[in-house]
């Protein structure tokens, strides 16, 4: 296995009593697209700022590209491109000027900056808007320009904070496709944060689900879905045309299913929970027993379930409580 390019160990940040990021351990490997997923206020941006040395961690260390981000932020910032969540540009300067300015700050000479800024604007498809002032740019155009700015320093790691926020669905598709393509072409490590699991799942090699300052799980989406399956089992709902007193017999037959966890009969519907996928077997059993089946639906664990399980249950309640608590304390 390669050495991780981003290595976070026990990273913690607290503001007073509120812990924004709690003991975060995370390894990201070169060339990988990692999605940091979590609801708003989960501590994603705080973690990212700590990786860039823009915020000092309360405890723990962040090593990025082999440098300690807290002790040596300049070295880290030379190798990492960062696209903040509400990216803004100097409205009175043109896209090219904005980009050249950043390129010059990264040590390029005037002529090199001009040339590579023009290249980057081509890459992100803004070549026609090159001489327009950024004050007139739409949100999507600003995101593209932000991406060009990330790329102009030829980074080893690109950190994109909520890159899809506020762009229309078509724009999101194009933008993510561009990120994926660039990552593959330049062997760029990408860390992107989002609260839209649906949007980013297509491009991420691995995701980490981050809720209430804690990293709950990490892994590829398939493995997450698989884990969830292991945990909760697969549920199958079978609806019959008529019962005619045979229900009891069907129930007995189904009890022989391997790995059966739960069986409920509710009028004409039978609900099964099993460890592994046994839907076909269950249907065959019922048909052999003479059942008239009108519908079968199998619930294997999809994105929505991952989303529901990790995002919605745990946060809304205790996090909201914490925040309102802090609010009242301040005004007492």
């Amino acid at each position, binding site marked *: 296995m390669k050495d991780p390019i981003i290595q976070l160990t026990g990273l913690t940040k607290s503001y007073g009593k509120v812990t924004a990021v709690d003991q975060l351990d995370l390894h990201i490997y070169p060339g990988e697209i990692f999605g940091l997923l979590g609801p708003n206020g989960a501590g994603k*941006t*705080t973690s990212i*700022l700590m990786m*860039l040395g*823009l*915020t000092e961690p309360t405890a723990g260390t962040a090593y990025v590209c082999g440098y300690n981000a807290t002790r040596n932020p*300049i*070295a880290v*910032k*030379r190798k*990492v*491109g*960062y696209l*903040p969540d*509400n*990216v*803004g*540009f*100097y*409205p*009175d*300067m043109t896209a090219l000027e904005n980009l050249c*300015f*950043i390129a*010059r*700050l*990264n*040590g*390029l*000479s*005037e*002529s*090199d900056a001009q040339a590579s800024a023009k290249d980057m604007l081509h890459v992100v498809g803004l070549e026609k808007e090159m001489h327009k002032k950024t004050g007139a740019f739409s949100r999507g155009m600003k995101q593209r320009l*932000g991406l060009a*700015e990330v790329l102009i*320093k030829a980074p080893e790691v690109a950190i994109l904070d909520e890159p899809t926020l506020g762009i229309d669905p078509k724009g999101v598709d194009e933008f993510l496709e561009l990120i994926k393509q660039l990552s593959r072409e330049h062997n760029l490590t990408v860390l992107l944060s989002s609260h839209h699991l649906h949007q980013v799942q297509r491009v991420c090699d691995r995701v980490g689900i981050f809720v209430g300052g804690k990293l709950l799980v990490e892994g590829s989406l398939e493995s997450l879905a698989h884990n969830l399956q292991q945990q909760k089992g697969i549920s199958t709902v079978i609806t019959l045309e008529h019962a005619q007193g045979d229900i009891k017999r069907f129930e007995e037959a189904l009890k022989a299913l391997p790995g059966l966890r739960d069986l409920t009969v509710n009028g004409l519907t039978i609900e099964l929970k099993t460890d592994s996928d046994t839907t076909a077997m269950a249907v065959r059993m019922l048909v052999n027993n003479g059942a008239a089946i009108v519908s079968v639906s199998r619930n294997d664990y999809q994105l929505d379930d991952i989303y529901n399980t990790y995002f919605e249950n745990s946060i809304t309640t205790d996090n909201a409580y914490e925040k309102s608590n802090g609010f009242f304390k301040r005004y007492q």
Partner: protein
Amino acid sequence: MPMKNPTVSSKDINKRPSFPMQVLVRKEIAAHIRSWRFIILILLIALTFGASLYVSSMGLKDAVSNMRDPDQSFLYLKLLTTTDNSIPPFHVFLNFLAPLLGIALGFDAVNAEYNNGTLTRLLAQPIYRDNLLFAKFLAPLAVVGTLFVALVMLMIGGGLLGTGVRIEPQELLRILGFTLISVLYVAFWLSLSILLSIRFRQPATSALTAIGIWLFFTVFFPILVNLAIRPFLPNPNYISEQEYIGYNELILNLLRLSPSQLYSDATTTLLMPSVRSLGPISMEQMVGAIPSPLSFRESFLMVWPQVSGLSAAMMICFAWSYYIFMRREIRS
């Protein structure tokens, strides 16, 4: 191979690494010069300069031929200070305008970057955080310094052409000293307004606060000092001359807490060589004194406390803004 040499060397010159500080200052200067705000300020300053110069050149003949005035031989200083009382001379005008200049160039230095979303983006580049603050401070000063030097040089050039009188080295030194102190005075207000721009998130709030402080010092502070001292002041008819001078000195020293008082003390002394004391002088001290101009060195020594007071005030504001900016959370 020899054919290639020139291209290589020219490329090497282009590839000279740029220092981030230089790039930042350049961008700031460009932004200021292009802004409407600065154009309006330049017009304002140039107009007052032109008007006061016009008035003084009208009365110049009388002023120079007034034999009782010990300063009559300093034509170029007369050009800056003579007035027929229809409008104040330029250095008095500047006492009002310099704060406005400083405030206008600094009130949104940091909070506008913050609100535009450019601050995070900028600090994610490989630059030190204080580089930004220094650039925000140095760029307006460079612009203001150039403006003042240009105006004064125009005046000297115009005077040379119009009168044909040659300029004394002492006069040149005094005028340059005046320019320097004016820039210092602007620098104080600039650092104060940068401090406020870090402290307050809204540019409008910081501008209003800065203008409030300016109004307080120019309008209310003298009234306040008067009000505070008067109850303790005994009837001047019943106290000795020594005590009377002591009280006078106290009031003056209290007034010198205001930067505009320091500025007017310093500029008056520098521009009028015959001013030999900034406080009251007793009869004993006056006896035997010949009303003659002081040398530049003596005038400069006299205003040294004022100059150090102004620099100290400026540095305190700057150090304070440095302190709060370096520790500030930059996330939006």
